[in-house]
């Protein structure tokens, strides 16, 4: 996301400064008439008609509507929507059932930090010379490619009483650690967050690895001449040069944690205190027909995500990270 900004706008700046090469309008040889010139001026608009049309219809209209629904008592069916002011928002922040989803998100936020730490560790050791590099990389990454429903079922099977994990604990003499992994409300969120870590570490890892491998090798060589060890390299070369990617993983992690759906939905359906923001919003909107209240929840979620993105951009300014 961060690079998107620079790339789109960077391109605009570049285009503005260079002579207008790409503007064939009116310069075309071969007797083009007035009608054709107008057609040529219209060309970019014609090409953008459908993309921008869909963007407005499927992204911007829902966002605007959502803000409008959130201040009404609409049930999703009624012809009239009654304006009720901030009532829905008050309910979002006062009903303990609604507040609980924020608490549940925290488990996934912590999970995403664990995931980043693991990814950073494995990316660092796999960027150096190591045997069977591709095999390790493949194993760590593959879970990310698996269908979320399949992952939910795989771990229901693994964590069920008497399942794989319990058997392993039993065989290693750790019976005392056995729990109702997804059934006990005190444990369930830890288990589900751990499953999320299992699922997403691979992607974060591959992103970090790609960034580390694109560091100019001369920098390492210079550092080696200065007598730097692997630890110095990590702190003074690797970490600073992959900061933008770490920042990106951070945003993806937070917004991902707030919008977790599949894993808890498939594994517990939100029972045992594992209901997340999206599960609750979907339940409200489509089972209870409280579209107004659900929209208020969704607006709050959207604002959280925007806030995190904004904060991240303030904290990690892009231009500071260029090492070379």
């Amino acid at each position, binding site marked *: 996301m961060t690079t998107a900004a620079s790339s789109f706008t960077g391109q605009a700046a570049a285009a503005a400064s260079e002579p207008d090469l790409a503007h064939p309008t009116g310069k075309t040889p071969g007797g083009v008439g007035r009608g054709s010139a107008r057609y040529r001026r219209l060309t970019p608009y014609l090409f953008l008609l459908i993309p921008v049309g869909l963007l407005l219809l499927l992204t911007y209209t829902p966002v605007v509507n959502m803000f409008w629904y959130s201040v009404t008592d609409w049930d999703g069916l009624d012809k009239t929507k009654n304006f009720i002011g901030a009532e829905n928002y008050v309910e979002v922040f006062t009903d303990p059932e609604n507040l609980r989803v924020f608490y549940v998100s925290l488990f996934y936020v912590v999970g995403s930090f664990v995931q980043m730490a693991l990814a950073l560790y494995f990316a660092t050791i796999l960027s150096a010379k190591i045997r069977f590099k591709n095999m390790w990389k493949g194993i760590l990454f593959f879970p990310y490619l698996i269908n979320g429903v399949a992952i939910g079922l795989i771990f229901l099977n*693994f964590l069920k009483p008497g399942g794989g994990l319990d058997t392993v604990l039993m065989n290693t003499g750790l019976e005392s650690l056995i729990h109702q992994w997804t059934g006990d409300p005190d444990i369930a969120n830890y288990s589900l967050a751990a499953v999320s870590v299992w699922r997403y570490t691979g992607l974060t890892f591959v992103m970090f690895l790609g960034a580390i491998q694109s560091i100019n090798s001369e920098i390492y060589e210079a550092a080696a001449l200065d007598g730097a060890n692997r630890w110095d390299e990590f702190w003074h070369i690797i970490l600073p040069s992959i900061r933008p990617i770490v920042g990106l993983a951070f945003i993806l992690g937070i917004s991902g944690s707030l*919008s977790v759906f599949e894993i808890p939905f498939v594994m517990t359906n939100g029972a045992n205190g594992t209901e997340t923001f999206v599960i609750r919003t979907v339940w409200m909107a489509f089972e209870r027909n409280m579209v107004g209240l659900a929209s208020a929840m969704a607006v709050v979620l959207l604002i959280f995500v925007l806030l995190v993105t904004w904060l991240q951009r303030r904290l990690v300014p892009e231009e500071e990270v260029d090492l070379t």
Partner: protein
Amino acid sequence: MKTATSTAKYLTLVIASICTLLPLGLIVFGSFKTNQEFLSTGPLTPPQDWFNFENYATAFTRGGMGLAFFNTVLIFGAAIIGTIFIGAATAYALDRFRFVGRAAVVGLFLLATLVPGVTTQVATFQIINALGLYGSRWALILLFMGTDIVSIYIFVQFMRSIPKSLDEAATIEGAGHLRIFFQIILPNLKPAIATVVIIKGIGIYNEFFLPFLYLNDPSTQPISTALFAFKGPYGSQWEVISAGVMITIIPILVLFLFLQRYIYNGFTSGATK
């Protein structure tokens, strides 16, 4: 000291690999066991008969997975064609033309990258419903091709590497913009198209939220909701569920083994959108 850290490195890799592979391996074991065997043996015990494909047959036929694969391919096929045209057209217009409102369009696309689709579905649902597409595969096709800013971004980025002299030469020869788009831009965008096909293909194959929300009829369901439906009637038959899970994983595994390099590249370039 050196060998100690080296051993520790390999040890952590082995532990991580076990954590990754064990839950998957137990599903493989389970999928080959008979119902009796599944209940009477421990999860770590390998199946007696590695050629017992009965669960696979049950899962595939009774779970309607053939139809589900067909639906997934159908949705993917239509959505990917739309995505390619939308992405390429946007990139062409934004990179090769200067026009009034260009900055506004760029801004709109940029801002949209910040809005996670999950958050707006409550309202998007009303639009899909108003279009009369609820319950139709077209709802998913439209959403997959119309809200994919990442793909557009990949095309815009790649477009800059296609030399403008190519279009200029064609213009001098009298080619119109439509011909330039189809005969020069699209063929030159092939690497970007390949990247988008891979990430989008995996994304659509794994998408659960949208089909769960919009497709209520089992005959229109893609693979992920079909697999989710196993939780109901086969809720206690873990050997059949295991086989269903394996059937969904195998195509992705095969793809991964053959296209590893492209998949890694696709995800690193796609994720850093």
